């Protein structure tokens, strides 16, 4: 038990916590500079996020996709790959799920799983392309994922426009109700918020993330390649295969996330002019969560609360909603520049020691 507490307050876990505090604090300074009342603003932010059952449900809905994309980015990171492509994998998962939901008619106990499997494969395939290009052609994954994001966006739009279009609308037809991941039951519990079963799946996948990486032979190889590809090659691990596997699994996480969003929240796919942004925010989530599954869940909660609560800040204290992006950026900055925070923490500890 003591060991657990010690681990909770050691330096590497303190850095994200401290970064969040510094981020919020500097955000407050910026609000003061703009003649806003930061205490009032943060008060409204949190009461918007947690004020009543409806808003709690909606906050959870907001958190859910961030967990999926955060896991996706973190998983690739663990194998030493920087997956900027969770966005595209998310979109491919969503369009696959909507296609299954619209085009097939099945009983719910087949329809939902089939839609999820389709999205997992679509997202995984989209990731595996990146892994393959890196392994076979030596192309850097940052470049290929960014390009594949755009391709995914337009492939999705094309499929909606040509196959799934609802006449006269800029979106697909509704999926059949048998493919819905939302239910009146839990929706009513949260006062008709759009919360859905995706959150349970997200938490289950976080556990799977841990199990896969730290308990299985496959995970041993993935982590080994992530930490030292040269030693892994020497030890007989097929490093190139591992890149493909890691990107496939990474894509699966994001793809299922896309499916949950359309099966659980919207029940259709829109023609998008721009990226929904969940995949890109997944990078922030993984960074804040330091690529650990528990960290990703907590990071997703943070980002979810801040982005959902931001509208409360605007209505209550008149602070522009966009300011929350500044706060998020500051948090990420301090997590990424952990050296600065380490120095601050050490100062802080030294002072403590003097007092004792």
């Amino acid at each position, binding site marked *: 038990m003591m060991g657990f507490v010690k681990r909770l307050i050691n330096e590497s876990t303190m850095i994200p916590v401290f970064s969040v505090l510094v981020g919020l604090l500097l955000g407050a300074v910026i609000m003061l500079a703009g003649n806003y009342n930061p205490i009032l603003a943060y008060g409204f932010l949190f009461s918007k996020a947690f004020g009543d059952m409806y808003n709690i449900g909606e906050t959870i809905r907001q958190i859910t996709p961030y967990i999926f994309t955060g896991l996706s980015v973190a998983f690739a990171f663990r194998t030493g790959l920087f997956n900027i492509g969770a966005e595209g994998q998310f979109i491919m998962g969503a369009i696959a799920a909507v296609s299954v939901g619209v085009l097939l008619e099945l009983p719910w106990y087949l329809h939902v799983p089939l839609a999820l499997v389709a999205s997992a494969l679509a997202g995984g395939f989209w990731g595996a392309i990146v892994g393959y290009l890196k392994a076979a052609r030596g192309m850097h994954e940052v470049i290929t994922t960014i390009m594949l994001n755009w391709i995914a966006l337009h492939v999705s739009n094309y499929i909606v426009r040509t196959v799934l279009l609802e006449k006269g609308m800029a979106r697909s037809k509704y999926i059949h109700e048998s493919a819905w991941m939302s239910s009146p039951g839990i929706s009513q519990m949260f006062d008709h918020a759009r919360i859905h079963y995706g959150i349970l799946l997200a938490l289950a996948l976080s556990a799977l993330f841990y199990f896969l990486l730290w308990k299985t032979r496959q995970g041993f190889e993935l982590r080994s390649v992530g930490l030292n590809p040269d030693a892994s090659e020497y030890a007989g*691990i097929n490093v190139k295969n591992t890149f493909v596997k890691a990107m496939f699994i990474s894509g699966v996480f994001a793809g299922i996330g896309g499916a949950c969003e359309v099966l659980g929240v919207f029940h259709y796919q829109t023609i998008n002019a721009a990226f929904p942004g969940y995949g890109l925010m997944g990078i922030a989530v993984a960074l804040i969560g330091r690529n650990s599954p528990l960290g990703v869940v907590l990071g997703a909660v943070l980002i979810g609360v801040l982005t959902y609560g931001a509208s409360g800040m605007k209505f209550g204290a008149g602070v522009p909603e966009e300011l929350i992006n500044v706060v998020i950026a500051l948090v990420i900055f301090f997590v990424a520049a952990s050296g600065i925070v380490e120095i601050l923490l050490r100062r802080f500890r030294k002072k403590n020691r003097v007092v004792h």
Partner: protein
Amino acid sequence: MPDEFAIEMKGITKRFPGIVANDGINLQVKKGEIHALLGENGAGKTTLMNILFGLYQPDEGEILIRGQKVKITDPKKAIDLGIGMIHQHFMLVEPYTVLQNIILGAEPRNGIMIHYKKALARITELSEKYGLQVDPHRTIREISVGMQQRVEILKTLYRGADILIFDEPTAVLTPQEIQELMAIMRRLADEGKTIILITHKLKEIIAIGDRVTIIRRGKVVDSLPVRDTTTEELASKMVGRKVSFVTEKKEAQPGETILEFDNVTAYDDRGIQVLKGLTFEIRRGEILGIAGVEGNGQRELIEVLTGLRKAASGTIRLRGEQIQNRSPRQIAEMKVGYIPEDRQKRGLVLDFTVGENMVLKNYYTDRFCKNGLLQFDRIFQHASGLIGEYDIRTPSEKTNARALSGGNQQKVIIAREVADDPDLLIATQPTRGLDVGAIEFIHKKLIEQRDKGKAVLLYSLELDEIMNLSDRIAVMYEGRIVGVLDPRKTNEQEIGLLMSGGKTGEREVSA
């Protein structure tokens, strides 16, 4: 005379988190002497010299240069004070010429143009004065390692250095080049330059040093004139106990042939042919040493053998079976152990635990893995057994390999590679950067494997190590084996000649 000393360092203390690297060190170097600084790796020699060169600031103590108290805040200040450092790894721009490298950062100008004529005149003058032969118009790429080192020396002289620090200067040289370097150092000293020689090679100190200061664990153990001491005395002062120099071993009992290379060729990453028809064999119960100057294909030989690099032609047979171009795992599974050259880059995943590193090559076998799940109980049990057997100093088997000292990291690798009872053990630079105690241990282990009837392929750049351990020595030059020698019937001169491409002819025995 107050300015009798070129350098005086008084009570220098430097602390790093968790360690006192220099603990009240006093060093006095007379003008015009060659002063050797002797100590094991991690003893604090390099820290002390980095302080002198302005790379670190001491926590306590003071420095006097030519009797003047100074504060050396950065290397630029050190250079202004006439201190020059010749690093172990050369700091040269490869595509530039010798001339351009020497003047880089201190170019004489003619308006906005570089005044090459003036630079050349100055370099010619310096090189004649000190016997530093260089070819100013060749690029660094085209010249030998020995000449590259002379360029480094000229660089410091060009900047007006009269105190020269040499950091392990002989590591990359052939025996002949070492002779030349020593002559140069002597000449520099005779011309009034002061020289500090950082080394752990006792023979060099005896050969060239005027005075030696021995450092152990951050403290000065002794400082004495070289003519009053012996290698044995220096060694015991350096290590703190008596050490045996001769590795004791019985007569080799070579058995059947295990490994045969037949006319193997291979290319390096740039597409240049680096193995040009390599032919040799190793038998059970013998240690075959591969000698050669770095970069003559030794590394590629090992990579081709272990499956990390493709052979372009030729055959490699292990116990009669062709193995060229199989995967590293397939080769490892044929009872081949491999201690890699770079233990931190190749040999270990530093952020894995000691236990995980111990199974890095066989984690997937039934012994440690069931139904795709790793059996961590067994992995850690296996590790704690090896930790005891090999006396690896680690808090536990669950400690990250990064936290271990170099010697203990190497022991983890050796334990892993020997534990699987290989028929062929490949050891590449197995003692590089280790202290004397760890070196003794590793040498013993290699001989133990030989005596158990295993074949050992040893590649090392330390000629002494090759001479001491090998039963046969194969010398590599430009991608070929140019001679196989019996260590009892040869000497450094003969090997050195072969290493630099000369022929001896008479003693060449068939591979």
